[in-house]
């Protein structure tokens, strides 16, 4: 069964009363959403809270709408975006850069010390570069190159047309390259 067919099956089953079906959807997407949220909030505990809220809101949405959802994955990302925004609005916090401890908390360390140091340095550079992008551009780069979403999927997440996403992504890459060149 294709991915989207299985999602529809699981959604229908969960609405019908099979809560374990929604649990299966959770298992399928929790890591993706968690990683996306971590890239945005930069804090493990906050990322966990936000991620949990995303899935609860997703259930509330599908159970209240009870209509066919073409792309559940896109729905999750859409909800995640909104929850992250709400999170910062309510907490009045700004997104912080990864500090040493923050990076340690979310990044899996390898056993090889030399590789670990280089790996962490590279990652820190990546995150620092991302932080210099605008919010929209940062999100585009994360969705495209970290979450590996297609243009069409990103359009679904952001509620834009494919063309608009393509243009915006082009601009984001342009800005990113300029920043990378400066480092």
């Amino acid at each position, binding site marked *: *069964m294709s991915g*989207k*067919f*299985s999602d*529809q*099956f699981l*959604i*229908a*089953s969960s*609405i*019908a*009363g*099979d*809560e*374990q*079906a*929604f*649990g299966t959807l*959770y*298992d399928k997407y*929790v*890591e993706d959403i*968690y*990683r996306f949220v*971590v*890239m945005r909030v930069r804090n493990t505990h906050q*990322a*966990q809270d936000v991620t*949990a809220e995303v*899935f*609860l809101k997703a*259930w*509330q949405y599908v*159970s*209240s709408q*009870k*209509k*066919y959802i*073409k792309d559940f994955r896109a729905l999750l990302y859409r909800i995640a975006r909104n929850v992250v925004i709400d999170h910062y609005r309510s907490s009045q916090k700004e997104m912080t850069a990864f500090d040493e401890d923050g990076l340690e908390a*979310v*990044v*899996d360390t390898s056993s090889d010390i030399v590789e670990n140091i280089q*790996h962490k340095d*590279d*990652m820190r*550079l*990546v995150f620092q*570069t*991302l932080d210099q992008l605008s919010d929209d551009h940062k999100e585009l*780069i*994360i969705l495209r*190159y*970290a*979450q*590996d979403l297609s243009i069409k999927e990103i359009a679904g997440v952001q509620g834009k047309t494919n063309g608009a996403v393509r243009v915006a992504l082009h601009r984001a*890459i342009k800005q*990113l*390259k300029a920043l*990378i060149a400066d*480092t």
Partner: protein
Amino acid sequence: MRFSRFKKQLAASQIAISSKESWRLDAREALLAEIRKSHVWQEAPAVVRDRAFFSQLFHTLFAQAILKPAVAFALIFSVVSYSSVSTVHAARASLPGDALYLVKLGLESAQVGVAFSESKKAELEIAFATSRIEEVNQILKQDTRAASTPHIEQAMKRFSTDLNSVQKRLEKMGQEEKSEEKVLKISKLVNDTTTKLETDLLVIKEQLQDQNSVLEAPKAGKTDVSSIDAPGADSGNTQESAVRPVENESTEASATSTQTLAGISTTTPVVAEEVASPEDAQIQSAAENDLLATLDSALNAVDQANIKSLEVFVGKAQTSKSETVQQEAVDKIQKKIDKMEKNIDTALSEKARTTAQDAPPSATITASSTQPVLIQTPSASSQVQEAIDEAKKILDTKDMGQLGQVVEKVKEAKAIAEGAEKPSQDTETTNPSTSGTSTPSAFNQKTDSGKSSDTGTSVQESFGS
């Protein structure tokens, strides 16, 4: 850093970032707990939470892309929404002819479709076949003859389809299934169930034949007015009881034939109905003859499934280390042989009686009942007996390794009794429901002078329809 490297590092960061399993599990449980508190979940009836059924149904509709996803979703949701849960209940309780009967059949197909093993599929199909018999019995209690005929036919056609599918699955399992236990279990289930089904089906056929006989001779004043009871209730009073297959005995293929018992119609309580006109009576009679032909197909399908189950069971029993299983195989074969012999004797005596009464061919064909196939020629009956004798001889050697040969002899005897010229399937004579079998399926059909022919055609020809 170049952009390509940046992209790689960004992608790598995703792999490096992972949540703790303990958190994932806790969050999952918390999520499901919230779901269970929701009114959507609370208001879903318990039956809807039957994951085994509905999940399978949904899986089928989506996985097999039977419908476009949006349509499938809408259909599923309408079926399981609060106001429509009763629809599912109603569908399950429906009978042929009811508005929801097709939904019921669709749900059954879906269940089979999502079953994960051939064994489970066969188990479901044999259970559904049993449901068809129950449905027909309910119809016979309720409906008038005119109304019930197409409905019974619908149920019986589905019955034949399911049993033919069971037979194919048994064949496949016998060849491919590695678990001896599974194969023995399912073949035994099918064998026992088909034995019962044959008995029930013969009773149903008998009831319908009696009705038909009343229709054919209403002016002769031979009919008695009574109600049709549930199968088996009154039939014990009739002559057929002496020759009807013993309950729960191994199914005898020959017992599913359509030998006439014209005399029985005069003694068996039947329902008398007024018919509007001779033309209507003739149309009704033709329809019922078609129904009897469908029943013959159904009996043949039962018989084929029964023989296949015996073959598969014996095949596995031969290599089984369990003496109990081996003995069971021997017992099943013995019962089968005994039944065949008994039915041969009965068939011959009925043939003699029918000939003596000078019954018309049409009555011979249509007034079939629980009797073995009409063995047309003495040489055929002696050949059948020879094959049976050979089977018994091999069985007497008590050599487990030769049990397969005994089954082959049994099949050979059946083939001879059917009047088949060769053991391979004759498509002209085979009912559509019996594809895939190695022996002709004309066993339950009337034969003309030892020549296999399509029962429906011959019946129609005899009635000029």
